[in-house]
């Protein structure tokens, strides 16, 4: 069952990453980038690496995406 789970998660990550790049609005693009981070946390947990999973969850889906969102207000982009 592990191989099938890894295959499905990779499919999900690739589809969400492609959708995040080809969006018109910028806020949607950043929120879908958080989905890529979530998928990679699940994959790191399956690969028996708990330290890397915790770091990617806190930094990739936490602070990094929030820095992008705060920059949107400065750039006066239409949300």
């Amino acid at each position: 069952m592990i191989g099938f789970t890894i295959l499905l998660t990779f499919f999900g990550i690739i589809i969400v990453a492609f959708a995040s790049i080809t969006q018109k609005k910028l806020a949607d693009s950043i929120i879908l980038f958080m989905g890529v981070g979530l998928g990679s946390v699940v994959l790191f947990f399956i690969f028996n690496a708990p330290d890397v999973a915790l770091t990617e969850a806190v930094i990739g889906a936490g602070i990094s995406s929030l820095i992008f969102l705060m920059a949107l207000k400065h750039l006066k982009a239409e949300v």
Partner: protein
Amino acid sequence: MSIKRTLPTSVLSGFALSGAFVLTILQLLLQNIPKDIDRAGDSLLQLNASEGVANAVTTVVVYFRGFDTLGEIAVLFIAALGIGLMLGENERCVIKAQSNFMLHTGAKLLFPIITLYGVYVMSYGHLSPGGGFQGGVIIASGILLLLISHRDFEVPHSFIVWLETLAGVAYVLIGLIGLLTLDVFLGNFLPHDVSQMGLLLSGGIIPIIYIIVGIKVGSEMSAIVQSLIKRGDNV
């Protein structure tokens, strides 16, 4: 009713270029899939068991490769310096809108829990997954929550400066004390018994260094986040 869209040539050429590049690399990688990897970490795992620390990744980051962690902290410091230089505003702008009542009350309830969780992750880094980097960033995200919801909240700049300076100096001082007593930079000069594996006070200087790293990373991320926040409607 049928809309005909033609792809611009930039998209097609980007597709072809990146596809060619990735296919070349992929063909090289698929030919040389390693069957039996010679692991470099076998000897490190056995050395780690004699140090008395339960988490092997913490020992590698702080003790065996402690100099790399010092360089990483330097990179974070340079990034925070650059951001503070470019975006630091000299006057505080007047805030026009009061935040939502639910956000105001909920943030006051959540901030102590987030800080407690961050301190727990930071101090149990040598017994379970976690450590200084993760705990510091958790505390910084709690401070971001308070910055968004309260009008007049602001971490004083001199406080962040002193905390960061003392943490950085303490890291190098501990390394120099190890050099004086054991002839090894960042040597383990506190007692570390194997019989104490699993307790909070075990491993010598390893939890102390990780807490210092956590304090420094947390204060740097708070400074970065505070420079980027923008309040009010005028610049």
